């Protein structure tokens, strides 16, 4: 079995909090990650690497979903994706 124990409830909440702060920063800076480096580092330090990857993907998905809802679906665009 892998060595690391699963994050506790407190650790999960600290991770989610750091993630939310980072995402709020991105929201208020038009997703300019360069403006939110400090919060990004805090987010990465508070969350397991696997979770950081998971949340990054989730953010991409949420943004894509929002785009679909506001702009509509363009099949030619989607065909280019994997």
């Amino acid at each position, binding site marked *: 079995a892998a060595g690391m124990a*699963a994050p506790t409830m407190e650790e999960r909440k600290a991770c989610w909090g750091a993630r939310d702060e980072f995402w709020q920063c991105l929201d208020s800076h038009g997703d300019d990650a360069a403006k939110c480096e400090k919060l990004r580092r805090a987010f990465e330090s508070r969350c397991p690497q696997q979770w950081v990857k*998971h949340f990054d993907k989730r953010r991409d998905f949420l943004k894509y979903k929002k785009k679909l809802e506001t702009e509509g679906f363009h099949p030619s665009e989607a065909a280019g994706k994997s």
Partner: protein
Amino acid sequence: LRRRLAVVAAVAGTATATWLYLRHQKEQERRSRRLRELRALALGQGDFQLSDTSGTPRRKADFLGRWVLLYFGFTHCPDVCPEQLERLSGAVRLLERDPALPPLQPLFVTVDPERDDAAALARYLRDFHPRLLGLTGTPEQVRAAAAAFRVYVSAGPRDADGDYVVDHSVLTFLLDPDGMFRDCYGSARTAEELARSVRGHMESYR
């Protein structure tokens, strides 16, 4: 004449009542037989051979007589499992408040048996509800349990630390005291909605 009419009406009435009664009885009999068949079938379906957090072997038959709310997840889960377990626990707490309702057993089955042993599960689950019972087992046992419930499970690639996430269907199953599937809930339901649905099933049971 009136007396004769009265007699005819009485006889017709009795005949109709008898016929209705017999038809009702036949319908009851048919329903009981069907229920017996389904119960026999249910024991074989959605069965599992796992161990709980005290190391005791558990199978579905062990939970007969109680309603069961069962969720598949893993302790290294980033967000979905804690959220779903909060809702499941919330629903259980809501229903516990009503003494007229039958007992409800919350169950958690891990989809990550390599890391989620009894101790890991106990640590994880006590944050949600004191009666939430964790089940784990060998990879084969867990695979069989997930397959029995048609739950998709796929462990992701390991990173440099050996960490990984497990992709899985997000589903909560409701089993009745006969071990039969009654309902299946996706990720969107709130605790209140879950409780309301379970209560509805409990009230219409049998």
